[in-house]
């Protein structure tokens, strides 16, 4: 990798080599100088503690990001971690025979065992089957068949017994054919049978008794219950379960002793007076009791030995209940979390003695973490042999907290593993008035640092010094300041997570500057199932609005469907304060930032609702006036991927609504492109970034010729595939598969370019910048991935070649152009093979657009590869002429090179890579790259080297020393020459 471990003597040569244009490599000691990397795991679903033995205490967790990780219980650090594929959802985890972590994933289709200390995979078993069913993992203790410990897995309608040593299937029993929907596997202690219990249809409850040795069905029984079942069930003991009937008002006790099933029923209203309405059984695994949620409260009901229900406690419905934890042979404990204003109260109770609390602690909790969502309880034996408890709490913002002895031992911000959108903000401008002492101190530090660096350069540094240099570089306070810098390297990266939390990360070291859980995006009575949509820059003050803070526009929706009402918040980017919020209001299907701002530098936004009405924000008369003025030139388009239709729209007059709304506009259809549904299906679109800066419209060729780029923000790149080929790669033959790409002008609906790739298939990853599009797809005929480039040139400007006219400025190259003038476009295209499959593609962006571009390719190995755009130049030929070579055209090869040094993530991985965001720095040569997935990675890149500044490790001291030495030399020689002349004269 980029760890160019070279001898110091070779350093000088190496510097020269690194100037060659292809490589972006860095030295080992430069790692984390310009980049940072953070590891997360996501929202925890299951946790299994492993604290029995002495040694490192750990907790194994599985998360919603399909991560399985082992965390240090002392500090919350990750011991090891595995990110499973995007479709490999983890259903269950457990620990078997004290040394393996067993995971059941992909809907009960894959069973894996991981070595507990180091996370190596021990074995993996694929369970074929496609029947959708619950997946249950059951690891009975002390069940040995021969030398093997058994693992029972129910998945895809089959019951399997696995050997825990090597993952071999010992036997398999098809239960789906019996029509049972298995809810639980129960293995009574010491017996040779396992019971599969579940509902058969909605009326019957069935038990299957199976021999653990060979999977032989010993006995099965089913009994109908006239009231029917709704599906909620809780198993209290090994022979008693409590279910809810189909009306959700009757608790049914199911006893299944010795294979005999019997029912008893009790109305909830009888058990709990003054509670009516539908009930639900909480899914927490409790023993000897059941937690029922009725309306706005949770009721804990215990089943006495006589079979009677007794209400133990009634708590608010926001309380969170842990699974029961057995602390001794007969004692079971349960943890409860309740909210008390800004604090949370953790209570641990014994099931047998509910009235007394083992622990009752109130913990101060950051209100930005929201409510608790999950709790996992674990106990330990204190030195005085009493048992203490620790609780792992998953909060609303997906953070993970370990609480012990009433204190937060550690917390992890795992919400950052599920970033949905990213934007950036500038930092505040530095204020005057820095104290002298600080300057002196920093001057001394500065000198000391440079002396150290000089030592390093002159190879005089001791190992201690080298370490000190490295430390100095890492913690150079310069890069972590909270103010704007001259080069624009310091910024805030503002990220929105799936939990509806907004984080501001500092680009210097990735620390969280502020975080806010947005109230508008939290679950409330008005907004039942909020989900986040988008993040936009709302106000970017510069020039006359400098004294205002920049702000961010956050959009969300109350529900999963497109016509669910929307919500928005405006958040101050410096402090994270919610300035304004609104909602729920109309639905949001599109957000269109307009290229206009008002006098306060607030950007105008159009929100398109599900009925294709446009709503203008901000709601001010000034914004309205601006919009009214530009109404004739504002268009929007919609892509209906399911119907295969592209439509162009324009805003009309105000909407006709019951309540008149002057900020709402009706729209009319202008054009539509209908793709034939039998041959084409839209699988992707791409446009240029709105804020992209292009330096010039001309492309100069080697022979002094000019080509004019077709630069338009209103170009849409659309990819369609044959409907048959919409599935996975290899699901169709090359003859049935094709890929069609279009370039569409979204103002007029004109198709500028159309191109068919026969025998190719998606998924397609696209990046669109300036006048070129690069896309990645699979070529079925060649059995390889391909990347294609399309460059678009404006033919109607090509005649502007009269030098005299250009000198005199008599040309129309800079006059505004309209799409209705139908500029004639020509395209150039070329395709190359590419080795990797790709997760995402982005391109570097710089402040002025002068610096040459690099493609940033998120590879399947979760790394980011920087590929020079020049490799994707459609003018590449096999034998470029001398002039073309001078222009920088690389001889054509059939495949694109993957140079190991050009991985910008060097030795690191951005697990679960989802997106790459590039932001220009103020320094033209430099661009800031932020890659996010489960991990976060940030780096500062200079695609054409830092031609406009000295490198950070440039030795100013050496330069200073050289200058001083030169000046001294001048004086000495002058004095010497004077003296010599005098002697000459005396001769």
């Amino acid at each position: 990798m980029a760890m160019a471990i070279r001898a110091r003597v070779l350093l000088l040569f190496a510097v020269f080599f690194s100037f060659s244009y292809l490589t972006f490599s860095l030295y080992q000691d430069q790692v984390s100088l310009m980049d940072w990397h953070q590891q997360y795991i996501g929202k925890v679903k299951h946790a299994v503690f492993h604290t029995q033995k002495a040694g490192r205490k750990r907790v194994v967790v599985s998360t919603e990001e399909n991560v399985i990780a082992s965390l240090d219980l002392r500090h919350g650090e990750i011991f090891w971690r595995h990110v499973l594929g995007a479709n490999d959802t983890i259903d269950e985890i457990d620990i078997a025979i004290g040394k393996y972590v067993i995971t059941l994933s992909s809907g009960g289709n894959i069973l894996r065992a991981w070595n507990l200390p180091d996370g190596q995979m021990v074995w993996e078993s694929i369970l074929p089957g496609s029947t959708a069913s619950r997946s249950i993992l059951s690891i009975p203790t002390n069940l040995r068949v021969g030398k093997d410990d058994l693992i029972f897995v129910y998945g895809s309608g089959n019951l399997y017994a696995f050997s825990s040593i090597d993952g071999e299937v010992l036997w398999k029993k098809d239960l789906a054919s019996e029509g049972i929907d298995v809810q639980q596997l129960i293995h009574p202690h010491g017996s040779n049978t396992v019971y599969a219990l579940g509902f058969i249809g909605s009326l019957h409850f069935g038990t299957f008794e199976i021999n653990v040795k060979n999977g032989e069905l010993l006995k099965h029984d089913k009994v109908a219950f006239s009231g029917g079942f709704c599906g909620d069930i809780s198993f209290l003991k090994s022979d008693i379960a409590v279910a809810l009937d189909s009306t959700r008002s009757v608790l049914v006790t199911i006893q299944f002793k010795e294979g005999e099933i019997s029912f008893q029923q009790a109305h909830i209203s009888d058990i709990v007076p003054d509670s009516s309405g539908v009930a639900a059984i909480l899914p927490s695994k409790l023993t000897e009791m059941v937690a029922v949620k009725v309306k706005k409260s949770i009721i804990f009901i215990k089943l006495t030995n006589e079979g009677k229900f007794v209400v133990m406690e009634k708590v608010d419905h926001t309380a969170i209940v842990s699974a029961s934890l057995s602390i001794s042979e007969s004692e079971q404990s349960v943890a409860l979390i309740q909210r008390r204003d800004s604090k949370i109260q953790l209570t641990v109770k014994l099931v047998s003695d509910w009235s007394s609390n083992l622990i009752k602690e109130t913990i101060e909790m950051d209100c930005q973490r929201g409510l608790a969502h999950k709790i996992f309880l674990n106990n330990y034996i204190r030195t005085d042999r009493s048992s203490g408890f620790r609780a792992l709490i998953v909060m609303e913002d997906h953070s993970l907290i370990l609480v012990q002895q009433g204190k937060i031992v550690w917390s992890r911000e795992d919400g950052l593993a599920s970033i949905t959108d990213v934007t950036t903000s500038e930092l505040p401008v530095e204020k005057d008035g820095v104290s002298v002492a600080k300057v002196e101190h920093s001057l001394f530090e500065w000198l000391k640092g440079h002396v150290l660096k000089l030592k390093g350069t002159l190879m005089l540094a001791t190992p201690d010094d080298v370490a000190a240099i490295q430390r100095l570089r890492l913690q150079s306070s310069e890069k972590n300041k909270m103010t704007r810098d001259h080069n624009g390297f310091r910024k805030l990266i503002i990220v929105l997570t799936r939990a509806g939390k907004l984080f501001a990360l500092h680009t210097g070291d990735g620390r969280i500057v502020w975080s806010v859980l947005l109230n508008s995006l939290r679950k409330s009575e008005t907004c039942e199932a909020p989900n986040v949509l988008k993040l936009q820059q709302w106000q970017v003050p510069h020039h006359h609005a400098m004294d205002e803070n920049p702000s961010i526009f956050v959009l969300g929706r109350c529900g999963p469907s497109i016509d669910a009402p929307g919500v928005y918040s405006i958040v101050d980017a410096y402090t994270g304060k919610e300035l304004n919020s609104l909602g729920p209001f109309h639905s949001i299907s599109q957000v269109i930032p307009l290229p206009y701002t008002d006098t306060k530098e607030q950007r105008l936004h159009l929100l398109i609702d599900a009925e294709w009405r446009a709503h203008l924000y901000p709601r001010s008369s000034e914004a309205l006036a601006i919009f009214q003025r530009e109404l004739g030139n504002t268009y929007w388009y919609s892509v209906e991927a399911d119907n295969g239709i592209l439509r162009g729209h324009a805003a009309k007059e105000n909407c006709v609504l019951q309540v008149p709304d002057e900020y709402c506009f009706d729209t009319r259809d202008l054009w539509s492109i209908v793709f034939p549904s039998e041959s084409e299906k839209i699988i992707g679109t791409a446009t240029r970034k709105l804020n992209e800066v292009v330096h010039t419209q001309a492309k100069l060729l080697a022979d002094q010729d000019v080509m004019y780029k077709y630069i338009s923000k209103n170009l849409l790149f659309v990819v369609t595939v044959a409907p048959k080929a919409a599935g996975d790669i290899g699901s169709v033959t090359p003859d049935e598969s094709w890929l069609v790409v279009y370039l569409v002008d979204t103002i007029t609906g004109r198709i500028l370019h159309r191109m068919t790739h026969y025998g190719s298939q998606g998924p397609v990853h696209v990046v669109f910048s300036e006048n070129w599009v690069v896309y990645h797809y699979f070529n079925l005929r060649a059995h390889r991935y391909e990347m294609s480039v399309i460059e678009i040139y404006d033919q109607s400007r090509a005649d502007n070649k009269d030098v005299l006219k250009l000198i005199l400025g008599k040309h129309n190259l800079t006059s505004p152009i309209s799409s209705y003038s139908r500029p004639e476009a020509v395209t150039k295209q070329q395709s190359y093979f590419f080795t990797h499959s790709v997760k995402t593609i982005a391109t570097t962006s710089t402040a002025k657009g002068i610096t040459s571009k690099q493609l940033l390719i998120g590879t399947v190995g979760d790394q980011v590869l920087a590929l020079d755009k020049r490799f994707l130049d459609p003018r590449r030929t096999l034998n470029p002429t001398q002039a073309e070579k001078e222009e920088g055209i690389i001889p054509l090869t059939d495949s694109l090179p993957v140079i190991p040094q050009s991985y910008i993530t060097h030795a690191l991985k951005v697990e679960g890579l989802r997106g790459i965001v590039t932001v220009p720095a103020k320094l033209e040569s430099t661009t800031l790259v932020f890659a996010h997935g489960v991990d976060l990675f940030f780096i500062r890149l200079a695609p054409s080297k830092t031609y406009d500044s000295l490198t950070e490790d440039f030795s100013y001291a050496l330069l200073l020393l050289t200058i001083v030495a030169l000046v001294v030399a001048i004086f000495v020689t002058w004095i010497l020459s004077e003296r010599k002349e005098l002697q000459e004269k005396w001769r």
Partner: protein
Amino acid sequence: MEKGKAIMGSGRRWGVEFTDNSAAPSSRDIPDPPGFTRSSHDQDDSTANKQKKDSEANWKLKKAWEVAQAPFKNFLMMGFMMWMAGSTVHLFSIGITFSALWQPISALQGVSKVFEPYKDNKVELLGPKLVYIALNLVALGLGVWKLNTLGLLPTHASDWVSSLPPAQEVEYSGGGIPLF
């Protein structure tokens, strides 16, 4: 060094000038020796002197013509160097080209100086001067031509549009696939 020389120059206390061409007796402090009449000697030599002056003028003219034609040789050499330098931009070719431009320009600036030694009432220097200027102009032209072949003259459209910003668009359009 300049300073040292000056000091050394003024360091001489006295000197003897043996050559004295001045004809005016008044300019001399020392009287002529007896029997020596300067005027008669002058008159004796006058015809020879005249002849000598004529030949000197001829010689000057000849020399002036030689000087006037000198750039031609220079010119040939420069052409050869340019051919050697090739048409790509690098240090050598730029150096050659700039010297090819600089030499004629400096030569043109110093036309009168070049012909100063041959200045004479009887010598017609206009012809040589014109030839000299013309040849230098040709050399300059050669230099400019070289500059152009190197692509350093803004004679192409590309030189004038290379930094032209993209044209503004009248319309604006946004949208895409519905958000999920």
